[in-house]
């Protein structure tokens, strides 16, 4: 069971990593609207390294695997994203550590820990126009969908839809954190780069999910 869980986690991480690498330009351009344009470059350099190192991460346990990912991110991603994404993966890893299988409830727990970590690090509140404004609604939807029951592919489709709509909704917010915050009221009218990145990640994951080991199992 553990090996399969680790395989699923690896599948998800690979999907995220490829999304980051493939969307370097788009994510950078989003950050350029009111930020400083480095978001795509930072993410791509880090996840490129994750893909390179992925075979070296321990696979006996999803927690150890995720910790390996977190370490690569911390060592490679600069800017605000390094500490934010590194902390997110590390906190998720801590929750997963030693767990045999990972249920949807485990995923919720892991992601809530990520949110807590991100908030401890970056001090952002909901509504500050950061990736949290997409991440938290995504977790809420995951929790609801899991409670509603249903196949994993249905759950992930619902997450993708929820993340996208939450990410787009950040357009109406004024940035209070990160470089975008210096734009003040001018940040209103365009979505947060980090939030949109999460939506693109969730959509791609939903698309690829049928090929995941969790499904074929």
């Amino acid at each position: 069971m553990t090996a399969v869980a680790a395989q699923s986690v690896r599948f998800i991480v690979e999907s995220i990593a490829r999304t980051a690498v493939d969307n370097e330009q788009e994510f950078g351009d989003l950050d350029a609207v009111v930020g400083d344009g480095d978001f795509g470059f930072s993410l791509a350099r880090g996840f490129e390294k994750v893909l390179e190192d992925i075979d070296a991460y321990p696979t006996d346990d999803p927690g150890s695997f995720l910790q390996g990912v977190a370490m690569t991110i911390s060592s490679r991603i600069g800017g605000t994203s390094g500490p934010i994404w590194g902390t997110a993966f590390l906190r998720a890893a801590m929750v997963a550590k030693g767990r045999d299988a990972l249920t949807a409830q485990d995923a919720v727990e892991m992601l809530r820990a990520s949110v807590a970590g991100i908030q401890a690090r970056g001090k952002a509140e909901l509504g500050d126009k950061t990736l949290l404004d997409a991440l938290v609604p995504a977790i809420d939807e995951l929790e609801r969908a899991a409670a509603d029951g249903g196949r994993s592919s249905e759950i992930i489709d619902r997450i993708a839809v929820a993340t996208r709509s939450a990410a787009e909704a950040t357009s109406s917010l004024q940035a209070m954190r990160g470089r975008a915050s210096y734009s003040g009221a001018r940040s209103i009218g365009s979505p947060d780069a980090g939030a949109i990145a999460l939506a693109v990640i969730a959509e791609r994951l939903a698309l690829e999910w049928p090929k995941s080991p969790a499904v074929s199992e």
Partner: protein
Amino acid sequence: MKKFLDDPKQFVPQMLEGLALANPDTLVYVPEYNLIQRADSPSVDRVSIVQGSGSGHEPAHVMNVGKGMLSAACPGDVFAAPPVDYVYETVKRLASPRGVLLLVNNYTGDRMAFEMAEELSVADGINVRTLFVDDDVSVQDSLYTVGRRGVAGNFFVMKAVGAAAEAGADLEELVRIGEKVNAVTRSMGVALTACTPPSKGSPLFDLAGDEIELGVGIHGEPGRERAKIAPASELVDTLLDALVTDLPFSSGDRVALMVNGLGGTPISELYLLYGIAHKRLAAQGITVGRNYIGEYCTSLDMAGASLTLVRLDEEIEDLLAAPAEVPIRVF
């Protein structure tokens, strides 16, 4: 985009390699961490001083490594704070029994990377202190929750603590000096054009042919307002008003005045601005005791300039006047 570039991913490493090749006797380059350090650091006699920050602000901060200024700099990629590991590794390598002082411009990413590295280093038993620079008056502290930005005024903090460290001051003393200099330093910039990050390949923002960005950040972040281009004298008035009223500076003050080029503006224009600013200040009874005209903290190829005022006292002036040897030089 037209730049001298082989590959955007190699922009920072190639620049740092050039810097190292140009200063083989005084600098050591550690590519894994974008680390440029003084060959004679760490020293048991001297607190080490480390800056991080993103790249794209050269000469800040890698070209300020040398006797009397920084012991090391470990920049991140263009406009990105360095990864935590770069900072942590740098602190470990620079660890001196006298301690390590981290200088951080006040941005979210930089704060986080340095705070995490500080935690890790302290756990290793290294004596570390961190000092935040936030001299930019464009961003109102009360309005925005991340606080003021650190911009060109960080030069004065670096120079002052660098001189003091060279003279043997201890870590507490450096923190005192750095905070004191930061507290009397105010900056504000104006962009005439946007900058083009190598990895983006196009300008970071759009400025029409007659538009300027008042209070621009050194990463091309927007400032106070988008305005129409005005005569140099008017722009100087606008910037000086913001600086003078902020501290405030007042008649009888003796100041250092920096006219910093943002990368694409020729030095002829900076001297033109200097002359105007010098006279405006004199008319207000403020004496320019020291002047700094050139590029100190840039935003890649952005055309524009920032003005920085530092209120001088004897201690600060002596530290600024002390000799230093860094890669930026004419000879």
